[in-house]
């Protein structure tokens, strides 16, 4: 970055974002941050991009998760073993096949109901969904216009869990999405 006044502004904003995320922990939306720092969402977004590039280029042990409008600070993927040793006592094991499959459906299909997921898996997925919620990898919201049905979405924990700043960086992400879309679009019949 060159030290123009505008640039200086962005460096300061990036520094503020870093401090906010360190202090609060977890993830925060661009909108929440923009309210705190009294800057526009677009400015926060640009500064977040700058911060991400900077952290990745430096030798820092910290990375920025920057996915679907949410930001979070996370440990760099190269330190996984080290952090595993630190958290040994509170360990939940790695996700099993059912967990990864269900997570993949929500990741690649987009927000999904339990019926959408079971249509593809052909098995009751209630326990798996609950386990993913406990891990903080998915969240659920009431379906619009139907209070008895829930829609499950990916959280910011997912890119972190998969070691990328954003899900779009996953190898083959766009390909898999396109394949899913093609099959889903082929016939309009949706599960009841």
């Amino acid at each position, binding site marked *: 970055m060159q030290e123009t006044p505008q640039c200086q502004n962005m460096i300061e904003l990036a520094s503020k974002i870093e401090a906010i995320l360190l202090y609060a922990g977890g993830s925060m939306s661009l909108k929440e941050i923009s309210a705190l720092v009294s800057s526009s969402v677009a400015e926060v977004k640009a500064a977040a991009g700058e911060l991400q590039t900077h952290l990745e280029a430096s030798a820092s042990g910290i990375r920025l998760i920057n996915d679907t409008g949410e930001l979070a600070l996370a440990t760099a993927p190269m330190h996984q073993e080290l952090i595993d040793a630190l958290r040994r006592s509170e360990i939940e094991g790695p996700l099993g096949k059912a967990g990864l499959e269900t997570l993949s459906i929500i990741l690649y299909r987009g927000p999904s109901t339990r019926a959408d997921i079971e249509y593809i*898996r052909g098995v009751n997925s209630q326990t798996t969904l609950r386990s993913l919620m406990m891990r903080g990898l998915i969240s659920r919201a009431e379906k619009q216009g139907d209070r008895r049905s829930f829609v499950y979405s990916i959280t910011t924990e997912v890119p972190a869990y998969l070691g990328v700043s954003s899900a779009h960086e996953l190898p*083959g992400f766009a390909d898999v999405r396109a*394949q899913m879309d093609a099959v889903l679009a082929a016939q309009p019949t949706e599960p009841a």
Partner: protein
Amino acid sequence: MDAFTVRQGEFEGPLHLLLNLIEERKMLISDVSLSAVADSFLTYIKEKTAFPVGEASQFIVVAATLLLLKSRALLPVLSLSDDEEGDVHDLERRLQLLQIIRGAAKELWARSRMFIGGGVSITDPLFTPAPDLTQVALHDALVRVLTAVPMPHAHDEVEVQPVISLNEMIDRMVTRVQQALSLSFKEFAGGATDPREVVVGFLALLELVKQGFAHVDQDGHFNDIRIEYAGNTSVPKYD
């Protein structure tokens, strides 16, 4: 823990089984491959004695569609209704989606993980209650949460016999075969009004052949199937 495999206690359903059978044969998902793996699928259901609560019916639904396909492959007289065609397409579509997802999920296995920071430790909290902090609100919140916890029934498997209807049909078949000693499948199927009945009859016939109760001949690819009674009157059971 190190391999992308099914964990103990995890349950794989009929679609996983079908996809495994098709992929083992290096086939593409189509009515042809579905029909080709129908026997293996049915053998699996018969050999498996217990399914988790509520899962057996999923297998039966898929089995019915497979039988339909298999029957059509062997009996050109059998034409499927629009609903049945829809079932077949739906099954193919579900398998295509599962195949994509399984491939994608495998790629997500064992990636280096990042851990989101939990925030700076709070050393100087300031007691800040809120207006909604009341005895009643706390009690109600807890009751709501406790009611929503599903009671686990992972080991609560029930014995099911997905072949019950099959056994009944075999009883009928045995009687018919004994009466005629030799009849064509067309004659046999001629008495059925529902194509599904033809299908179950066909399955029953395959079973009789396997068990050695009947001999089946088919002269050419689209010719009628001839059934002959093999001389044993006892009825096979699967229990």
